[in-house]
């Protein structure tokens, strides 16, 4: 995988290489070079299989991380391409013309994270939620417990405990 990294490094401004396993690495690239990197990986290096496309919300630094995970079946390798986006202006170029199935992922990201992919087919249609009127739910600043308590009625009598405290008190006797 090091050889691959050096080949790519000569062509694109890549960030650090994170070697997770011997056959799985992650690299960072800026949004402008993503498309040409993906094309290089798909057409020349043989990473033809788009495994997944997802996002991670790093709210502390105000960034979204988009992860494009590509697989090369012949060489048994995977590479994850990370792209950092600003949380304020979360817009990214679409790749649905490279992999048609990416349109689905982009629809989901638009709905669940609020990341826009202009020109991706049907990207603004509702995908999973219906009539959602809050901030996109997978963002870190959306609190699902508060939302559920405010929206849905509880049945009286249900108790819930924090497991750590409960186990400390009941099982391990640490509380006493």
């Amino acid at each position: 995988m090091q050889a691959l990294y050096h080949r790519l490094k000569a062509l694109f401004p890549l960030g650090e290489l994170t070697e997770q396993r011997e056959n799985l690495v992650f690299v960072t690239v800026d949004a402008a070079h993503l498309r040409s990197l993906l094309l290089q990986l798909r057409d020349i290096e043989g990473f033809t299989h788009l495994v997944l496309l997802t996002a991670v919300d790093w709210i502390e630094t105000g960034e979204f991380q988009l992860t494009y995970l590509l697989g090369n079946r012949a060489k048994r390798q995977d590479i994850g391409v990370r792209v950092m986006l600003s949380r304020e202006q979360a817009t990214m170029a679409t790749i649905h013309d490279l992999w048609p199935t990416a349109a689905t992922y982009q629809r989901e990201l638009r709905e669940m994270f609020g990341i826009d992919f202009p020109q991706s087919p049907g990207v603004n249609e509702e995908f999973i939620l219906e009539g959602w009127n809050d901030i996109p739910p997978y963002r870190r600043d959306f609190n699902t417990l508060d939302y559920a308590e405010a929206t849905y009625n509880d049945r009286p009598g249900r108790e819930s405990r924090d497991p750590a405290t409960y186990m400390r008190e009941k099982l391990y006797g640490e509380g006493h």
Partner: protein
Amino acid sequence: MKPELEKRIVKGPDGFEFEVDPIRDYFCETPPTVMTAAYSAIIEKLFNWARAESIWILGFGTGCGAIEMRPLMTPRFDAYRYGVQWRPTPRQSNLFIISGYLSVKTLKRVIRSYEQMQNPKYVVGLGSCTINGGMYWDSYNTIKRLDDYLPVDLYIAGCMPRPEALLAGIVELKKIIRAGKAEGANIYAEKFEWYKANQKRVIHDWDMPDYNW
């Protein structure tokens, strides 16, 4: 409101133009009424016996509980012995088994299916998630109490309830029906305003008439 549900002028195949208001034209908006029992107590008893012995379940697997429905109807458990069978259309079914958690999007479809069923109709909540949210108590997309939105006759607890539990639940439901206490449809009609208010509070995308059958 979706564009296809808005009032508009359409041109028919024969060239005439006419106005269409889909929500009003395609559905009936009359609220449900309380249906009284038969005049004679004996006949009502006979009907209750028949209702208990012939339970037609709506084939709508709303959640993961649907996976245990197939074993229920196959050799090991064979619910046909109890007069239970599937119907694919809500018009002909009497029992709605809410098989697990209901997301808001499904709740809307469940309400529509429920309202299309004919009086008397029964609802069984299957799984802990219909009782108080179960595993999904803090989820933003699943309701916690089913009986806020539909009149429930019986709950079967568990995650996931075994087919034996489901069979026991059906037998228990038969007792309720035979005793003439399964009047969920009438309760729904009586407390219609309350149920509708609850439903509308959760379903933000309300683009159907209040009652449709």
